[in-house]
């Protein structure tokens, strides 16, 4: 167990390094630099050149790369050209909204998925089961940005119940603390739903299959013979073993949730990592792009590491194999 954890942690470092290096190459090989994206009538070619030199953008590629790597190794991610402040501070501002959004979406995913799967598995091939199967398949095929648009259309533009974008209302700073929390939650509902619904459909589909498998097993027959209530058998005896593959699938879905939140953030103007990456990439703000990718890649890789460890906890065979 500990050995697996250590081995995976050792592979984490080269993997993050690989992601960061690929990112560096992509950003550097792209046409244009930060100095070119500035549009100012009094910016002469010489001034642009000076600007490029002051950011060190005129140095050879290898030198720029090694400089960044050396600084990053000591925890210094440099400062953002665009926001004129340390990259760490920009990330510190962008990470909590993304974590909030992705976390709520994962919670919704699990809650809705379990409820739907249990409802479906109570009477296999009954109408609830058929309905959830069809709905699940429908949602699985729909892109999350389209669901986001539909939710905006119905609940924001049509019914006017919820705000269509951003994280706070204008002037929310003057509200009391509970008022601000309610305001935030109201803004959170639609983005979290558009991200969580797709996952919930997948979770419900997987869990329904494993639940049916568990219900056909001998320990459920034994529990029935002991006279336990059907509810207890379903929620405790069947659900617990059936949830194990779901936990694994959850960890594997982490990169998807993280990437998906980038898309949903752009639909709802949610001020998270995705929006920051987008603006940074457009402005060729290399330190910020590199910093965001570093943190994003580390988060995703640590997530899949946790999933692997959970798998090893759940399945003894996985422990022996490695």
């Amino acid at each position, binding site marked *: 167990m500990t050995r697996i954890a250590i081995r995976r942690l050792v592979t984490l470092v080269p993997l993050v390094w690989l992601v960061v290096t690929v990112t560096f190459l*992509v950003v550097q090989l792209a046409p244009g630099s930060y100095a070119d994206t500035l549009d100012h009538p009094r910016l002469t070619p010489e001034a642009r050149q000076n600007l490029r030199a002051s950011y060190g953008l005129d140095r050879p590629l290898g030198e720029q790369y090694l400089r960044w790597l050396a600084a990053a190794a000591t925890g210094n991610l440099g400062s953002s050209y665009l926001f004129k402040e340390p990259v760490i501070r920009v990330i510190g501002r962008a990470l909590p909204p993304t974590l909030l959004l992705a976390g709520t979406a994962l919670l919704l995913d699990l809650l809705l998925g379990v409820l739907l799967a249990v409802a479906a598995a109570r009477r296999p091939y009954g109408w609830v089961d058929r309905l959830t199967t069809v709905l699940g398949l429908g949602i699985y095929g729909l892109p999350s*940005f389209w669901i986001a648009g539909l939710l905006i259309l119905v609940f924001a533009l049509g019914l006017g119940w919820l705000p269509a974008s951003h994280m706070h209302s204008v002037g929310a700073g003057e509200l009391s603390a509970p008022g601000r929390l309610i305001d935030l939650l109201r803004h959170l509902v639609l983005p979290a739903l558009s991200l969580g619904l797709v996952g919930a459909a997948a979770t419900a589909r997987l869990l329904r299959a494993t639940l049916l498998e568990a219900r056909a097993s001998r320990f459920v027959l034994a529990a029935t013979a002991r006279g336990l209530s059907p509810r207890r058998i379903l929620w405790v005896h069947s659900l617990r073993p059936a949830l194990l593959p779901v936990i694994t699938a959850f960890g594997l879905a982490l990169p998807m949730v993280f990437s998906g939140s980038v898309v949903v953030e752009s639909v709802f103007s949610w001020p998270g990592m995705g929006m920051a990456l987008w603006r940074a990439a457009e402005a060729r703000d290399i330190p910020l792009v590199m910093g965001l990718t570093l943190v994003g890649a580390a988060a995703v890789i640590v997530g899949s590491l946790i999933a692997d460890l959970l798998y090893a906890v759940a399945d003894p065979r996985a422990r022996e194999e490695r």
Partner: protein
Amino acid sequence: MTGVSRLRIGGAAVAALVAGCVLGPLVIHPPPADPVVGALQPPLATVTALELDDGTTVVARRVEATSDGLIATGAGRRRVVDPARVTATTRHRLLLGSDRFGRDVLYQLLVGGRISLAIAALSLVLAVAIGGTVGVAAATGGRLVDAVLMRCVDACLAFPLLFLMILAAAVLRPDPLLLVLLLGGTSWMGVARLVRGQVLSLRTRPFVAAARVSGSPWHRIALWHYGPNLVGPVSQDTALRMGDLVLAEATLSYLGLGVPPSVPTWGSMVAQGHRALPEGWWLAVFPGLAIALLVIGLALLGDALQRLTEPGT
């Protein structure tokens, strides 16, 4: 649903969409776009197209003849047309409405579908080519090659891929070919794992040993002995993978990354529709439904192929 009915429903949905996108634009003749009076017509609207002598067309919901001339109304605007200038009058039914530039949404949808399908299909070919090569090489190339290649696969799987794709697409110029390279180059890992597993089990079969004993070189064994036996499992897998690629392509074009803005794809049509949500719900709804229909059809198809070839599951 049984395997056969899944095969029928999924196959019908996919075949209808592909045939519609390939043949549809040749068959249907939408009215020329009129961005003034003909913009944002709702689905099922019947419009009158007045072709004028200067080559332009006025597409209107209602045309009234008055003493001032023909009054064409639509999209909340009106235009007076001199009857003497009208060279031809045709009536059209816009099944899915028209967009902000007066273009027929159905026609755009079919043309955009061609591009979306072509990009997804080409990236799939690329993914299968890379994945197949890596898989066969890992399975037959000895332990060291296997270990190195499979660690590479693990590493690529752990990448936050969409994150990187968004980054690459944001800094590079939109280009369909680049999109194919990005999508194909980031989705071959599953194929590689599948092919490696299949080849490892094929290697132990007598016909491979017979081929090796009779002196067949490795490339002939790979092509003629492994290849045909891989078609079945890989084709099930590709049906599902194609759905994922369609979604990925749609996501990137939604963000305005995949193709130049002038080229319609389903993803970019949804994006344009979102910008016009208050005025026209149909602009975003129909391309989204087209994506869903294709992805669900492909999922059913893949599922059915798996059930039909592996009766035990």
